[in-house]
């Protein structure tokens, strides 16, 4: 009984504490925003791990899909709830934003999942290094497309999301952003966990370990690849949408290859094929980024250096193909996850 409900209970308590702390302003806004970026990074790292760790392909264009999600959620939000000089007045009353917000984020996710087809379809015939190049190209295509769309600000970026968030907090006085980031982070990990632990999702690992055997032993590899790439990029889109509303401003420059690399560092730091590794690494990395802030530009020497050190001395990452349950057998026995 306790086993079954302990995790949802724990998460509800954690969510409740977070909301309480944010509402009563027990921590300052800076710490709160770091916590929110942590959530965004957890989504990014776990979803990239699905492709790079579990499926064994190398995607280095994750930020591109994040960009699609960020822009689609932002534009839709501004269009519906706040109005914009290029699009005219808001289509819906601003009070509805409280209810519409999760749908905005999900719409961004769906759009990013569709953009994921850009990588999924070539992956039927291409793999390894060549597919990595395609993911890189996809990242550039998306960024260039947005840079050249003047109606949404081009390379100057797009804003107006702060107004929606403020409007939500005026309608119902709750710290909406921390709440939704928390909820979506849990949703993302929950979704990935369920997908990967089903016999259907184990096809993903079969593809990574021996694709020929997978195809011949009845796994529809094209279908699994499509679903996996779309799920991964869709979740990146969700992360992008949340990111856009946390910052209140998006520009294509913040979703370039540097951002993709950042996510790669998190995945490799945590370990391929380990969701708990990615979660830990994403949190650790967010804190590290903030701790290294005084170094300013030198930060971008230290972080790549970190990648070199990981690859040299612990190529399997913190958790390398293991989950928390493997490290703590008692935890595993207690939960018996299925």
């Amino acid at each position, binding site marked *: 009984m306790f086993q079954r409900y302990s995790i949802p209970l724990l998460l509800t308590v954690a969510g409740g504490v977070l909301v309480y702390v944010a509402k009563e302003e027990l921590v300052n806004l800076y710490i709160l925003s770091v916590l929110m970026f942590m959530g965004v990074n957890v989504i990014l790292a776990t979803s990239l791990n699905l492709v790079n760790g579990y499926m064994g392909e190398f995607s280095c264009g994750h930020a591109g899909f994040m960009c699609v999600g960020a822009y689609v959620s932002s534009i839709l939000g501004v269009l519906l709830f706040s109005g914009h000089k290029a699009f005219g007045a808001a289509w819906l009353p601003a009070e509805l934003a409280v209810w519409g917000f999760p749908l905005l984020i999900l719409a961004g996710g769906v759009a990013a999942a569709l953009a994921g087809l850009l990588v999924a379809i070539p992956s039927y015939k291409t793999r390894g290094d060549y597919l990595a190049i395609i993911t890189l190209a996809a990242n550039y295509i998306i960024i260039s497309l947005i840079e050249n769309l003047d109606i949404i600000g081009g390379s100057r970026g797009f804003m107006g999301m702060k107004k929606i968030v403020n409007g939500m907090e005026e309608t119902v006085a709750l710290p909406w952003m921390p709440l939704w980031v928390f909820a979506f982070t849990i949703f993302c990990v929950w979704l990935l966990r*369920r997908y990967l632990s089903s016999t*259907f999702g184990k096809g993903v690992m079969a593809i990574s370990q021996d694709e020929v055997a997978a195809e011949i032993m*009845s796994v529809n590899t094209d279908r699994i690849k499509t679903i996996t790439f779309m799920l991964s990029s869709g979740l990146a889109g969700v992360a992008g949408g949340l990111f856009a509303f946390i910052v209140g401003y998006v520009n294509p420059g913040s979703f370039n290859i540097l951002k993709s690399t950042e996510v790669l560092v998190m995945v490799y730091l945590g370990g391929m094929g380990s969701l708990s590794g990615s979660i830990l690494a994403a949190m650790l990395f967010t804190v590290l980024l903030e701790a290294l802030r005084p170094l300013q530009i030198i930060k971008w020497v230290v972080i790549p250096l970190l990648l070199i050190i990981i690859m040299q001395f612990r190529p399997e990452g913190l958790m390398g193909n293991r989950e928390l349950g493997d490290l703590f057998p008692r935890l595993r026995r207690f939960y018996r996850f299925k």
Partner: protein
Amino acid sequence: MLSQPQPQPEATPVLEISGLTQHFGGLRAVAGFDLRLEPGELAGLIGPNGAGKTTVFNLVSGFYQPSAGSIRVSGVPTAGLKPHQVTALGVARTFQNIRLWNDMSVLDNIRVARHGRLGYGFFHAVARSRRYREREAEIDREARELLEVFHLDRHADELPKNLPYGTQRRLEIARALAAKPRLLLLDEPAAGLNSADIQELIRLVRWIHGHFQVTIWMIEHHMDVMMELCERIRVLDFGETIAEGTPDQIRSHPAVISAYLGDETI
């Protein structure tokens, strides 16, 4: 997505190959290969190295598309089908060099081979719907039963790469049977086994043939295995059939002897 063609009921031959030809660039790997396998047969395919035996298997399992000729599995032409669709028609195989999923537990290796008849998709999996739970429970039960009859149940949670070679071979055959095939293709199942393991393999194949009522077609270099097991043997050399018959006929067939040992005249 293409709809999966349905295999036709009994009586039709399990496998019907006619005029099968495969070119790799200028190399003619298989030429004009014909075959009919009736339900319940246990047939063999032999030939010197590079004769095109594995190519025939790769063609039958849909891994290559033939340059010419046709293949019918249970009466259904397999032209244009992807390998997983051919498997769903009832063809499963093992590989010359074992190709298990080495970082997945033995049990999961068996379960993933049920992908062709999973009966649920992504949304059922993440929603943990009733159908998902029922199917997973059934798949799990069947996989454990299969491991049990193959005496692999005590290895269920181990990784295949940590098992002895002979056990890996057995697991690969078990995995192929998990797909519930009508036709089982064994590509050199005795390769790399010691003589004790080979005796066990012979018993195993004979037992599978009876117990699962599956048609078996095997490639093997160990002649004693073939002589023991097969009712009918086909000999291939440079992509062409040079002889066919019972083990005894093959043993004394002049073309076979010259293919393996060279001509007597120098």
